[in-house]
């Protein structure tokens, strides 16, 4: 009975992480705004910044991986591999979130020393959607950290609770 609740808990956690990564991906891809000032019209989309493209790609990889692992049968031998891949996915999520956050912070506050003006004043809706995508990415990261600990606990038995 305890094993079943643990398995269901792990499944729910992975489903939530999949949903969060997918939400981050979709919100960032659909963020697009056209603004015009002084007869110059500029369109802000996520492909303008390399960091946002990396964020989209990383979250796509994580979503696909989570979806595939959802269907892994419990007795399969691949679960040891899942521990390693969970660590890789957590690293992907941290790096993509951190890169997108660094660039978005410059977009919001600008960099006075380099002469870079903030762009959030001209495209506020774009900025809000990017913020939403970053928050969803952060939730996916937190869930993946818990998933990593769960995978370690269920596969490796690190507390050596089962004495042979």
């Amino acid at each position, binding site marked *: 009975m305890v094993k079943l609740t643990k398995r269901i808990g792990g499944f729910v956690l992975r489903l939530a992480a999949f949903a969060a990564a997918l939400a981050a991906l979709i919100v960032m891809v659909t963020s697009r705004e056209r603004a015009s000032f002084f007869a110059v019209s500029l369109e802000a989309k996520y492909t303008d910044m*390399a960091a946002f493209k990396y964020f989209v790609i990383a979250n796509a990889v994580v979503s696909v991986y989570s979806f595939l692992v959802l269907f892994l049968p419990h007795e399969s031998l691949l679960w040891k591999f899942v521990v390693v891949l969970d660590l890789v996915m957590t690293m992907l999520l941290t790096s993509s979130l951190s890169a997108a956050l*660094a660039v978005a912070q410059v977009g919001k506050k600008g960099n006075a*020393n380099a002469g870079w003006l903030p*762009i959030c004043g001209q495209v506020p809706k774009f900025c809000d959607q990017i913020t939403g995508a970053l928050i969803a990415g952060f939730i996916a990261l937190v869930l993946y950290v818990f998933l990593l600990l769960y995978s370690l606990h269920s596969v490796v038995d690190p507390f*050596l609770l089962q004495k042979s």
Partner: protein
Amino acid sequence: MAVSKLALVASSGKSCKILLGLRLLAFSATLSAAIVMGLNKETKTFVVGKVGNTPVKATFTAEFQHTPAFVFFVVANAMVSFHNLLMIALQIFGGKMEFTGFRLLSVAILDMLNVSLVSAAANAAAFMAEVGKNGNKHARWNKICDRFTTYCDHGAGALIAAFAGVIFMVIISAVTISRLVQPNKCCSTAASPSVAP
């Protein structure tokens, strides 16, 4: 005294020496990344305009503190190098300590956390450096690397060192996690029961 402890470490299993060497490499890589980026500063005078016939000069400085991503880079690399230093000290001077269940697990978890930390820091700094090198036409951000070449070169060196540190930390983390499954003789004097998944 320290020499005898070093000899004890050197005479133990081969994986011990490999792990120690890896940790030393990761420590040096992250420490050099933190130091090179921390001392990154360039001052240059530019001609800003002309008043009559005399050119007006202004002095501009490029420091790492101007960019929050680089500040995070320095702090994170310092933290990871400190973690590696602690682990090296533990391996050399903690020979009699029994690495039973929770201690092995805490080393593995700390290694995983530090892998994430250093990878996040290296990536944030890399993307900020990319914006600084190429500029961004859509946001009208000018590139700064054509004017502050030394600053950019030093930053690139620090980034390369940090990415090398990331690779070493990933290998170290993999080794530490595999030691959870099969505790070998390295750093465990007590016979831990074998793990049954």
